[in-house]
């Protein structure tokens, strides 16, 4: 893995230096660098839950990553099969989420770097917490668990903020690394700058036609959160903002002759597949918005970073009731003038796909039909292209024949 990421990093760096730069290449380069740091054997590593406060961890110089990243990575590199088979051998039910099975398999195979400590988070999913606990037991390393309350209330914000303070103390106790206040202030300022740029990026993405091709912003928002607090996150976001600005000014759409604007619900399919290309080439359909690409939080006060980060965590629509998520999806549908939505319904994801009926109903209320797919977003062995093609074709033909739900203004 170490060599893989080093090779990826050097290959991408060379391409970028040779003038083949693009925001997506810079994004891939940052992923490669993160991977290289994770597997360097030198950096202090922490395996985390998705809601971990990466501004704080980055300010402490800890290379941190949510474990689902590994599941996505092995899927995208086509190596997921042996990882999942490893979990089959220990009796891990195939009903579980394949992100988590892949991570577990990678750990069993010795392909996960040994962390200094782990930080779990009770949101967004119960399965993820369980995997973090298993990894802590596997690596025999200390674990801190962030309890993420469900509602955005002042009491809950204070509770979560106090946990972030405790987490910093836990890291100090576990590793001796002290959180420097000046470093945290810089980190928060970088995070706020990245937030401003994200707002610009998403505003540009909502243009008609959208400057976004279906792959430009795949996994973008959630992966960028790993870099929150760093200058790299700011630079990467700037490159997207600049590129999209150029495209909008030139009237250039991400998908040529954009006809249909799609919203992708929750995670993308992580392995190589033809759906996005098929949508663009055959139907002029662009995934202009991903549910996970949005800014739902206010700037973080550098003088009170813990509360600000807590507010951000609790603002994420995956918290609380499904009503929060449905309202958010309805807002995205309106902001981006969405014609239809695709929900991959990742098998094994109880929190995400559990309420697919309610999500479908909520989007229907604003005139946006939803295509619910039954797909394992990580395990490519279960992918049945023909069946998907048939369903997508039918959905696209239906969308093609109906007026935009937003055409009446």
């Amino acid at each position, binding site marked *: 893995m170490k060599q893989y990421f080093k090779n990826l990093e050097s290959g991408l760096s060379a391409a970028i230096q040779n003038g083949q730069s693009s925001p997506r290449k810079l994004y891939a380069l940052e992923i490669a660098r993160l991977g290289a740091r994770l597997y360097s054997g030198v950096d202090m590593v922490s395996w985390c839950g998705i809601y971990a406060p990466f501004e704080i961890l980055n300010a402490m110089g800890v290379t941190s990553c949510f474990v689902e990243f590994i599941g996505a990575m092995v899927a995208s590199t086509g190596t997921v099969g042996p990882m999942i088979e490893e*979990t089959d051998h*220990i*009796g*891990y*039910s195939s*009903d*579980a*989420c394949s992100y*988590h099975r892949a991570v577990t398999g990678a750990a069993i195979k010795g392909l996960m770097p040994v962390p200094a400590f782990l930080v779990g988070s*009770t949101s967004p*999913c*119960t*399965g993820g*917490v*369980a*995997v973090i*606990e*298993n990894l*802590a*037991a596997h690596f025999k390393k200390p*674990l*801190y*668990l962030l*309890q993420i*309350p*469900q*509602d955005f209330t002042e*009491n*809950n914000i204070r*509770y979560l903020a*106090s*946990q972030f303070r*405790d987490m910093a103390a836990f890291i100090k106790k576990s590793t001796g690394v002290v959180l420097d206040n000046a470093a945290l202030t810089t980190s928060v300022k970088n995070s706020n700058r990245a937030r401003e740029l994200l707002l610009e990026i998403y505003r540009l993405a909502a243009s008609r036609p959208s400057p976004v091709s279906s792959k430009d912003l795949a996994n973008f928002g959630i992966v960028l959160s790993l870099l929150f607090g760093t200058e790299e996150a700011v630079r990467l976001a700037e490159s997207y903002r600049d590129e999209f600005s150029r495209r909008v000014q030139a009237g250039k759409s991400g998908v040529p002759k954009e006809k249909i604007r799609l919203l992708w619900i929750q995670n993308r399919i992580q392995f190589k597949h033809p759906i996005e290309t098929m949508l663009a080439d055959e139907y002029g359909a662009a995934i202009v918005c991903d549910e996970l690409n949005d800014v739902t939080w206010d700037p973080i006060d550098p003088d009170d970073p813990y509360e600000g980060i807590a507010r951000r965590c609790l603002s994420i629509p995956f918290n609380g*009731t*499904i*009503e929060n998520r449905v309202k958010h999806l309805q807002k995205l549908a309106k902001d981006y003038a969405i014609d239809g939505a695709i929900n991959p*319904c990742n*098998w*094994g*994801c*109880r*929190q995400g*796909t*559990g*309420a*697919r*009926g*309610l999500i479908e109903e909520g989007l229907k209320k604003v005139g946006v039909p939803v295509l619910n797919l039954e797909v394992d977003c990580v395990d490519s062995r279960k992918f049945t292209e023909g069946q998907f093609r048939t369903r997508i074709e039918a959905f696209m033909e239906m969308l093609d024949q109906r007026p935009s739900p937003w055409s009446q203004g």
Partner: protein
Amino acid sequence: MQQDKEYVGFACAYTPLALIHAAGFIPYRVLPMGDFPDRAGLVLHDNLCPHVKRILDRAMDNNLPALRGMVFMNSCDSMRRLYDAWQRERPDIESAIIDLPMTMDDPAVHFFSSELERLAGILKSWDGETVSEDKLAASMAQYDRIGRSFARLRKDAGNGTLGMGAGALQGLYNQASMQAPEDTIELLEKNTASPPPGAAGMGGVPVFIFGNILPNPEAFDLFESCGARVVGDDLCTGSRLFTELSSSPGDDITSRYAGALLRRRPCARTMDVRNPGSFAAGIIEQAKNSGALGVIGHTAKFCDPYIARIPHLRQKLREAGLPFIMLEGDCTLRSIGQQRTRIEAFIEMLR
């Protein structure tokens, strides 16, 4: 019978029954049992746990007593989704979801205590009574008394002197979870007063059962008909709901109650962060203390907290020399009936 009081429904073993009772309601467990059409799939995905889907089926079929409200605990993803679906399907029954920390440390207890206070306010808004310290203490004492009575019955089961089968004991658990504690105390006193001779299942092979949802008494009858004698359990629908609470420090009774609830024998979704993976040790300790020769795991399908912990538990049980069989069900008797051959073979192997 406490017929003048209204029911408040619940679905999780972490529900603060004493608090609901102290607010003047009868806690009523909505068990995933009964005969009703399977319609939850219209709202919830097929991969959600059958426990929540069967409860939703009951709600959609109006297969419920008159409920003044429904209290959900934020125990897992599936329970959150059930709360969402409940609001859509039964807006006529007020509902609330209470955050439930996954750890048992002091800040978690403090937070949970504030959630219990919030629940007390919600219950009051449902025309309940103000929960005073005295009332809560009295209700806690009643539930502790029930816990002690059930502990005696479990001890008798372990000794082979229980005057009823494991199915009948499960029937008592079910009944106790759906009626006022005063009625349960009366019921249990009758059942613990004079166990008849010739206890059921005495000759069976002692086994320990753990898991989440297994409320059907006939499932336990089936175990016994396969030659097993259930000498202990760790089930959401069994002993975990009715255990005397240990004393827990706290400035006020709500804090002490919160600590006692969080720190009692955990379901797989709760963890001790100081000792990751300790769930397995807890099951092994209970199984050994019960004198079981083997361990039966039974969970409702799609339960992530158990799915993730079973491989580690399997390994630890092997190391401890305790044979283990894992069963999955869908909260119907049919699903467990299909596993009879496996259960029989397991019991035969233990002989």
